[in-house]
């Protein structure tokens, strides 16, 4: 699974993209477990971050699998 980091999450993760290995499909809570195991600095942003799966915001019940591109979207500030 390809993970994308933006804005201050890049600094927290110390990278813009990462690959993580997922077996089967998992929910958002399980995805956070994977992410925090590898990027513990993300913990403080967890409450404010939304997942986007393949370019669309995840909703309750969204499942994530190894072929997905998942972006961590911190609060936006465009315009």
């Amino acid at each position: 699974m390809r993970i994308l980091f933006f804005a201050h999450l890049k600094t927290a993760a110390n990278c813009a993209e990462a690959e993580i290995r997922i077996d089967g499909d998992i929910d958002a809570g399980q995805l956070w477990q994977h992410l925090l195991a590898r990027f513990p600095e993300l913990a403080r942003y967890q409450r404010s971050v939304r997942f986007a799966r393949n370019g669309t915001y995840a909703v309750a019940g969204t499942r994530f699998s190894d072929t997905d591109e998942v972006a961590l979207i911190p609060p936006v500030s465009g315009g």
Partner: protein
Amino acid sequence: MIIEIAIVHAPIVANESLPPALAGTVGAVATFAGSVRGDEAGQPISALDYEAYQPMAEQTMRAIIEGLGQRHACLFVRIIHRIGTIPVGENAIHLLAAAVHRAEALDMIAAFMDRLKQDVPIWKVRALDLHGQILPPSS
């Protein structure tokens, strides 16, 4: 509804042209330009750096416009968002909405800007002070 969405790195050239097919049908054109102001959280700055998750940002802007178009029936909407380093006084975003009547065009602009600031994956990532040094972002 015709929709044009672009995320650009160069200065935005305000394009007020409408699709020729709409001539005589459009009665109202509303635009909005948002520019970088010379202070950020009370500190003088020279520029802001913007970053986007570009494909998702474009797709999200399009989906927002399509959704808002159900209530605010517009004929044409153009959105240009600039990213990268944007100097003070230059535009970060330019919108144009054309409709038969004014309410739809004005409401589309206002509603889009509210949604942009909630859901479109674009970020002000840092401010540059008057010496070009990085200030921490305020938001």
